């Protein structure tokens, strides 16, 4: 399994959060994807939805289960990954790049401080 990239932070609930300026991209880790098995359906909150740290940003369904995806910063949803509507398996193939889930315009990033760096996350979640 691929090592989690060091350019982002990770939540206990297996989301990754990558901040570029005030744009936050959220996805789920390779470990989470392996546990979920093949993704079958993904639905993120509509653009314009305001999220506070700990809010549900959307839902992912796999062959095995349905899971919520959480956002840990304050901001507004700007875009969901449109490519996933027809091909949710993109998250299985490339969870850290092409398989991103949602982008949020951040008004307060301080919630991200509590998240783990890649090394800490990898140490806790080796498949």
């Amino acid at each position: 399994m691929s090592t989690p990239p060091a350019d982002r932070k990770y939540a206990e609930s297996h989301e990754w959060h990558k901040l570029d300026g005030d744009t936050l991209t959220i996805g789920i880790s390779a470990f989470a994807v392996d546990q979920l098995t093949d993704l079958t359906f993904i639905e993120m909150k509509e653009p314009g939805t305001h999220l506070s740290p700990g809010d549900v940003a959307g839902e992912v369904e796999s062959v095995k289960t349905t899971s919520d995806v959480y956002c840990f910063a304050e901001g507004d949803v700007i875009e969901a990954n449109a490519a996933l509507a027809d091909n949710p398996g993109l998250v299985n193939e490339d969870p850290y790049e092409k398989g991103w889930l949602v982008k949020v315009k951040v008004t307060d990033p301080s919630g991200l401080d509590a998240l783990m760096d890649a090394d800490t996350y990898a140490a806790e979640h080796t498949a």
Partner: protein
Amino acid sequence: MHKSPIHDFHVQHGAQMVEFAGWEMPIKYTSIIDEHNQVRNAGGMFDVSHMGRLEIKGLHAKRLLEHTCSRIIGSMQHGQCRYSFMCNEQGGVKDDVIVMRLDDDEFMVVVNASNREKIVAHLDAVKAAREFKVNIDDKTFKTAMVAAQGPRIMALIGGVSKEIPTLKKYRFTTKNLLVLKLIVSRTGYTGEDGVEVILPASGVNMAMKLLMKDVDPDDPDAPMKPAGLGARDTLRIEAGMPLYGHELGEEINALATGFDFAIGMNKNTDEHGETFIGQQALQKTVDDGGPKARLIGLEIDSKRTARQHMKVLLPGGDQIGEITSGCLSPTLGKSIAMAYAAAGRLNEGDACLVDTGKATLEARVVPLPFYKRD
């Protein structure tokens, strides 16, 4: 936790192992959907060693099974398999089983892993109460069981045995392969043609090498690849096959399943006048106008999956039933589910709703099975 005799095979092939009914078993090797499609299009090899294998042998073997199985056992020929329920006194389902008749007084019964200990205790109790002379031997840990399923499997097996591809559906043969005694049955749980093989645990790794010797799992055109329990579940859902704990349970009336062929309501015509446990209760169900709920198939107008315990609603919003199993069907590209619904309220083609707890999905009733090979 119990390990399959071919545990090492799974690890070598990169399986993701999960706990299932006290066993560590492979849920997938690569992708559940890829393995599902491999079985539908070519062939898959499943380890089903976790299932219980009980040898029932002796003077009263037939009577013990006649009394505990809903299906008529006495008319079975040697080399024949039958799918049956074992019921409780209330007509609920204790387990669904495959009975194989090896001889007049010798049977092999394959039971669910989660019910093995319960069924052994049940058979022991009936044996004691009726003073049957019969030996109940749990062979689960001395044997392995492998299922090879898919449209290319019989041709593949034809390269090893001329006889096996001539077996009719639900027939088995016993073979001696080198020093191993095998039971090979033309049965399965995927909706595809194929076989299930019971063999001694000590010889299964050698047999696996033989079975997989010309098979390269990395070849996209391989006639057979290892497949996990994840694919086994989506395959059986498409094939409309019930699973204990979902469509079957102690609280579920056997007649509600709709699998009437597996319930011999005329059993007391047997030479010993042997009825089956639960028969009286089921006769009352029939006399009272039939079961209160019926198993139905649903096609859901969404890519979302309907999961066990989600509510099934009438278009007006009243609850009428509950989902038992569902998946986004890899073969049909549609979301499908099985559910129990109040008898007579939802008929084929009728619209209904599935309440996921967060969303309400539109669905309609379709015939079972969802998938049948021509």
